[in-house]
């Protein structure tokens, strides 16, 4: 009888190991996430787009503010994408390099998405956790306020804010952040309600930890899974919001630009046969949204196995 050396080796290895290592829920989730093909595709896209935003500028042969006078006025014939004159994505209607503009727009759109989501996460988590943990009348008043704010058509109010207080980047962040935490706070409150009667919270309270510290040290870390999933899904929504406002011409101002503004410019000029001005920003916009949605869905599936 021939004994398969390899199998024996693996058996002995197995016997040497003291016991089967338990898998933590996080490791389990990570395994499920990495097995999800759509999520991995989304992650790859996001990494590539981020690299493009960070280092794409180094490849540009023109700056985003420079006008190429040789194509000016004849953009439809001469401004098309070409490697020869260094305009990889062509030029926009004023003769600016669209590649450099797209890099800049990608940076700003991603930044708005991430900062907006970050504000929403911080404010929403603290608000929701406080309301849920304190409970009683405070909770009722706080959540009633959220209900009222949610029934307001926020895009109109946001534009109102932007027009009245000036269309600066910080105002845009503030405005987007102000409205985006509402859903977050509801989700977090629900989760907190189910956490606050657990033993570890009770133990903390019994040893005299203050409410604020309990929220920060014990409640919030346990909300991380829900918050992470929701934050990933929030980033594309923030990008959509900003693009919407910029599409209307009420968002970021020149010389800054964003995907929404670029799409708007491209859509305005496609009549003249300069389709690349629409195609390149639109491509980046669409694949990034896809990426975020796939990763968000994948994270949710990975962290919540019973949903599958």
């Amino acid at each position, binding site marked *: 009888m021939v004994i398969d050396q390899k199998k024996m080796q693996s058996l002995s290895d197995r016997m040497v190991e003291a016991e089967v290592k338990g898998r933590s829920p996080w490791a389990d989730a990570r395994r499920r996430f990495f097995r999800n093909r759509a999520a991995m595709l989304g992650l790859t896209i996001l990494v590539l787009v981020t690299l493009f935003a960070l280092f794409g500028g180094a490849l540009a042969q023109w700056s985003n503010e420079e006008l190429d006078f040789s194509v000016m006025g004849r953009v439809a014939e001469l401004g098309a994408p070409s490697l020869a004159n260094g305009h990889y994505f062509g030029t926009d209607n004023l003769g600016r390099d669209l590649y450099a503009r797209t890099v800049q727009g990608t940076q700003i759109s991603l930044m708005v998405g991430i900062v907006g989501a970050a504000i929403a996460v911080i404010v929403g988590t603290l608000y929701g956790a406080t309301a849920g943990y304190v409970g009683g009348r405070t909770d009722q008043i706080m959540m009633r306020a959220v*209900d*009222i704010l949610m*029934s*307001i*058509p926020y*895009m*109109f*109010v946001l*534009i*109102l*804010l*932007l*027009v*009245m*207080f*000036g269309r600066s980047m910080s105002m845009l962040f503030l405005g987007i952040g102000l409205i985006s935490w509402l859903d977050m706070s509801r989700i977090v409150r629900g989760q907190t309600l189910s956490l606050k009667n657990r033993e570890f919270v009770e133990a903390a309270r019994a040893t005299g930890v203050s409410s604020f510290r309990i929220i920060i040290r014990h409640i919030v870390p346990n909300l991380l899974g829900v918050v992470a999933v929701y934050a990933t899904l929030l980033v594309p929504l923030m990008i*959509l919001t900003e*693009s*919407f406002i910029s*599409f*209307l*011409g*009420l968002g970021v101002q020149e010389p800054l630009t964003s995907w*929404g503004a670029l*799409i*708007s410019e*491209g*859509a305005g000029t*496609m*009549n003249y046969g300069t*389709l690349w001005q*629409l195609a390149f920003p*639109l491509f980046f*916009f*669409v694949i990034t*949204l*896809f990426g975020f*949605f796939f990763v968000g869905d994948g994270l949710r599936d990975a962290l919540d196995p019973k949903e599958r």
Partner: protein
Amino acid sequence: MFGYVLRRLAVAIPTLLLLIVFSFILMSLAPGGPFTGERALPPAVLANLEAQYGLNEPLWRQIWNYVWNIVVHFDFGPSFVYPDRSVNELIAAGFPVTLTYGALSFLVAVVLGVSLGIVAAIWHNSWLDYLAVGVSIGAQVLPNFVMAPLLVLVFTLWYRLLPGGGWSFNDPSFWIMPVIALSTSYMASIARITRSSMLEVLGSNHIRTARAKGMPEHRVILRHALKPAMLPVISYLGPVFVSMITGSVVIDIYFSTGGIGKAFVDSALNRDYAVMMGVTILVGALTILFNLLVDVLYAWIDPKIRY
């Protein structure tokens, strides 16, 4: 039921008043009034103008007048930039257009989305299901401001089938592209929600019982599965309504349909606060009213809700 509606109204009306007061205070806080232009006006002229629009009175008095005029006379006051036009006229001119294509889009999104979701759930894991899921994932990343240029590109510039903009109440060919552009992404979301809730309901015990007693499949679906499966969809209708009203701004701008969105963006660019506030408040009122309707509908369908 009647009591429930009354109680909900009791919350809705203060909310609306709060919105009015909030936007009014915002306006008064904003740096630079409506009359600060590139050239500074002589103080006497400015005082006269402010007196004419009632801006010289104390803030609480201004708010009181504003709210009073809206509630009692349904009068949103004059436009600050075009003295011969009132906010009411601007809204009255645009609102029927917005309402027409908005209602159509809403209908299209709900009917198509729900049907798509149900079909996908019934033939789960068939090619129909994959098609529906594919369509809804694809449409998710095509918001109205992306759909609008793409539609114009294909149907106006390439195939020359439809007019690229403008509006006519008599010619439905003007309506097609606004409706498609506005409804696509919401149709996709509704289809996704319907599909997953229908799948959940179809796996539940009462459906198994209905099948076990030999009920024909179409009756199982129409009588027993549809109603509970619709609950998540109904609670999603409120947000859809809000986003569609918001999206109508893009439609009005891109297709030059002349709805209230146009008035809103024009006034935003002109800093015509009176018009902006008028539109915001009107939209807010519609939203609150619609949410109320949705809640009542929900309570009516879901027997578990006690009111």
